[in-house]
């Protein structure tokens, strides 16, 4: 049962949040120009790392804001929480 620190509301139980998958996947500006493989990469393919993961969450049963989280997918430790649009924090896998 994760305790997630919403940047707007503070620490709350996992149950208040929705999960939004891998972060920092921008929608291609000119989607029509992509070939099927490149589009599939955007649409379906994910890094799905074991360890450090930059991912999106939203406070669905709270302020309804989306934000980013750096979380270890093995220990479930949350290493950083940052707002949408902010740069990926400088954390490497193994930093604890």
């Amino acid at each position, binding site marked *: *049962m*994760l305790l997630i620190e919403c940047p707007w509301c503070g620490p709350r139980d*996992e*149950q208040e949040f*929705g*999960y939004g*998958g891998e972060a920092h996947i921008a929608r291609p500006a000119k989607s029509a120009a992509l070939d*099927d*493989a490149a*589009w*599939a*990469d955007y*649409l*379906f*393919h*994910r*890094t*799905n*790392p*074991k*360890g450090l*993961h930059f*991912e999106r969450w939203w406070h669905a049963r709270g302020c309804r804001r989306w934000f980013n989280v750096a*979380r270890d*997918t*093995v*220990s*479930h430790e949350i290493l950083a929480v940052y707002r949408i649009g902010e740069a990926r924090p400088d954390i490497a896998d193994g930093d604890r």
Partner: protein
Amino acid sequence: MSVKRGAYSIWSLMRNALSYHENWQRAWRSPDPKPRYDVIIVGGGGHGLATAYYLAKEHGVRNIAVLEKGWLGGGNTGRNTTIIRSNYLQDASASLYEHSLKLWEGLSQELNFNVMFSQRGVMNLAHNEHDLRELSRRTRANWLNGIDSELLDTTGVKRFCPIINVSPESRYPVLGATVQRRGGTARHDAVAWGYARGADAMGVDIIQQCEVTGMRIEKGRITGVETTRGAIAAGKVAVVVAGHASVLAAMAGLRLPIESHPLQALVSEPIKPILDTVVMSSSVHVYVSQSDKGELVMGAGIDGYTSYAQRGSLPIIEEIMASTMELFPMFSRLKMMRKWGGIVDTSPDASPIISKMPVEGLYFNCGWGTGGFKATPGSGHVFAHTIARDRPHPLNQRHTFERFQSGELIEEHGAAAVAH
């Protein structure tokens, strides 16, 4: 090379009883890895071991290693709720799961290892008009695909499973169901052990505690793997590692349309038999059966976030229980004895990838999500064919890695029963 070993039977049990069971032989060897294999199968779960078994048995490949980072069957094979059925919607999946079900029906004899395949029927419940329509569609597709399935009304549900609560006052009353009588459950560990024993007898090297840490690729072709027990060369490498598919793919420079999520299951304390079938409900999110030991075996939806830890969160368990109370109010005073989690590899269309990969000689079998156990024999069978012939078996020709580019998906979220 093949290993001569006594067959299991009531006679061998009796004979060994005379010598106090002190003369039983190892079910499989524990060899050191050789420098090179024709085929390396990464992953010693049910699917990987079945693949090795059929490669050796039906395709004459004998120089095979199965590399397992932990212990055989320690991943999802030993962590699932063991439900077996083939009542899938799309032709491409129904035929694959049906192929598997047919193999299940003779598997104990094939492997000379009792996998306790128990055809007690699998019932899928409908709680609203939408469910009824979906189950009707799936059942009618099953009929025309030659798969057994029956539509039940509420009375039929009660007759098939007398302890179920069909009161119209229920929050989500039971409006009907489908039942596949040939479906049921099996003893999950036995499947891994049976295939391991069978493959080992044909000379397959099963190597536990051997984790793959890298892949050797030269000029677009795989030449071997790096492991915690040294580098091993291989003509072909087949990866079938469920939750860890993305990790292995990354070693080959690939990204998959896969996310790994926790899926939890639990058992109750053993009680005298009360439930003689498998009951599933996708709209109230629960599935339950009773094991031969008397435990109720239950599962529910996946946890929302990705994870490689074999554990999940409490709310999912609370939800299963609330749903269970709706269907079986008499279970309230029973107790949860043990719960655990597995890592499932979910794909966008809830269908697996059983496919050649963009690296020559590399094959992946993944994306089974929450429902891979039931497919174990069929998956291994067609994957072995794919590896041996370097082209898919007719039953998995649509289960390609490339379908996510073309858009030719095999949409099975409705039949997969667990919300993804």
